[in-house]
């Protein structure tokens, strides 16, 4: 209708067959429809102390978090319709935000997107089955859960990062000094410049890509069932490598120094050895995926 020329529309309205009541009804229906799907923004502000605990939970919608003032949590909720509401409560230093559906809501009308500014040292828990989850430039622990959610974590220092998805891809960039545990059933996992005392990533059919230097003194475990594992590391990496694919192939282009291992050494399916001072332990395991350790 919108694409029709005005004259054409006017002509149609003035056709004898179309009554004024019909036009009014159509306009009213359009208005009501647009009202029902009206997007509204709601802002909430909370005052908190150090190390606040913040949880956001939505059925459908994205959640993005970035650092703000050290004693304030600012939440902007963007509701796609009146069929969904936002519950928020503060209990001391703990803040819980959750959206809940009203009767008639569905994946479209029940969507709520959140934008948060939080103290950098806060502990963060995000959950959205359908939507993008992102957090950046924080220093507290971060936990994210989603089914199809696309997860992005960037620039987290000293905090633990726990992420799990069903098939949503996980990307973690510039994270250090924390425990990092990432798991997905079929989503790909990308780690770039990630290091820490414990870095674990597992995916069933998704692939795992690591681009970094494996830090110094950490434990790195990457596991897939049928997804490939690829690690791109500098030539001077210092690590003790163990790689084994039960049914897949393995490849590396490093001069590894051999050592004893509990794994059965099978040509083309496993490699073991150290480079440099073997500061970190790196274990790459797949059932049927391919494993590649490449020099940058």
């Amino acid at each position: 209708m919108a694409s029709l020329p005005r004259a054409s529309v006017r002509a149609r309205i003035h056709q004898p067959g179309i009554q004024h009541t019909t036009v009014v009804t159509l306009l009213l229906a359009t208005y009501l429809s647009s009202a029902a799907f009206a997007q509204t923004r709601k802002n909430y502000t909370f005052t908190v102390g150090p190390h606040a605990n913040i949880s956001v939970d939505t059925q459908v919608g994205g959640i993005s978090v970035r650092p703000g003032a050290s004693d304030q949590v600012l939440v902007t909720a963007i509701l796609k319709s009146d069929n969904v509401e936002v519950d928020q409560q503060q209990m001391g230093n703990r803040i819980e935000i959750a959206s809940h559906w009203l009767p008639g809501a569905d994946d479209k009308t029940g969507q709520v997107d959140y934008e948060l500014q939080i103290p950098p040292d806060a502990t963060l828990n995000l959950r959205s089955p359908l939507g993008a989850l992102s957090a950046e430039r924080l220093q507290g622990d971060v936990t994210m859960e989603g089914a199809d959610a696309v997860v992005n974590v960037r620039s987290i220092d000293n905090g633990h990062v726990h992420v799990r998805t069903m098939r949503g891809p996980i990307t973690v960039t510039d994270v250090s000094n924390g425990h990092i545990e990432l798991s997905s059933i079929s989503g790909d996992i990308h780690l770039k410049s990630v290091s820490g005392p414990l870095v674990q990533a597992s995916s069933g059919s998704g692939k795992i890509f690591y681009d970094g230097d494996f830090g110094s003194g950490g434990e790195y475990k990457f596991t897939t069932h049928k997804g490939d594992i690829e690690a791109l590391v500098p030539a001077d990496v210092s690590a003790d490598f163990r790689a084994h694919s039960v049914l897949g192939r393995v490849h590396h282009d490093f001069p590894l120094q051999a050592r004893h291992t509990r794994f059965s050494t099978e040509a083309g399916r496993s490699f073991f050895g150290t480079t440099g001072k073997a500061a970190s332990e790196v274990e790459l395991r797949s059932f049927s995926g391919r494993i590649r350790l490449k020099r940058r």
Partner: protein
Amino acid sequence: MKCSDVERVLPELLDGAPDGAYQTEFENHLKSCPACSDLVSDMALISGESRQLAATDEPPARVWVRIAAELRAEGLIREPGSQPARPTLVPASTRPRWAPSAWWLAPVAAALFAAGSYVVSHKPAPQVAQQQAPAASQTPATSAPSVAPAIPEVANASPVARAAAKVAPASVPASPPLQVARKSAPPTVVGPASSADDQQFLREVSTRAPSMRATYESQLQAVNSDIRETQEYVDRNPGDADARQHLMDAYEQKALLYQIALDHIQ
């Protein structure tokens, strides 16, 4: 004062309300009883440290959910609906974490995880069990006795493992008796994909998140396929510890799928 008396009054003393009458007896007993002395010092330490815990140090809600799932799987707590007067260990939340018709997913997820652990923790079949298999397969009547030892083994396992055995009976073939039973019985192996729990899982998803039904079903099929594939490999290579670990990983993936669904369809 006896040891049993110490245990009885210990909570009051730790709460900081010592009674002068038995405080002296209490202290005298501690001097003569190393066991009670250790107990009191441990409890005092725990009690003192726990007071230092700030609210922000409390674990996230999902930890409570997992603990509750384990406890339910072990029958230590029941659904609030079945006994309204009984308190639940799951803390109140801003919205119900446990939908009445989906609560069963949590113990199933826990059981799946336990199934994986069970598979990995059990050693490959010893030689003697392998040797019994042909005889059992030749005479079906003798298969019953050879199955029998499997029952106590499962029964002696933890309650969660027993639940796991119910959920995925084919997932615990690595123990010797079950392996014999499998060889002796007709091929009635119930694959993970056909379990009743999976069907109920998909029914719940269809009802509560119909738009995601196809996605969950395809993911479930993929995970079950991974379990089957790994299981078959482990059957052929029972000594491959790494393959057994992958089997546990596959069960963990399935448990993760159930947990994600539980969160989604609440």
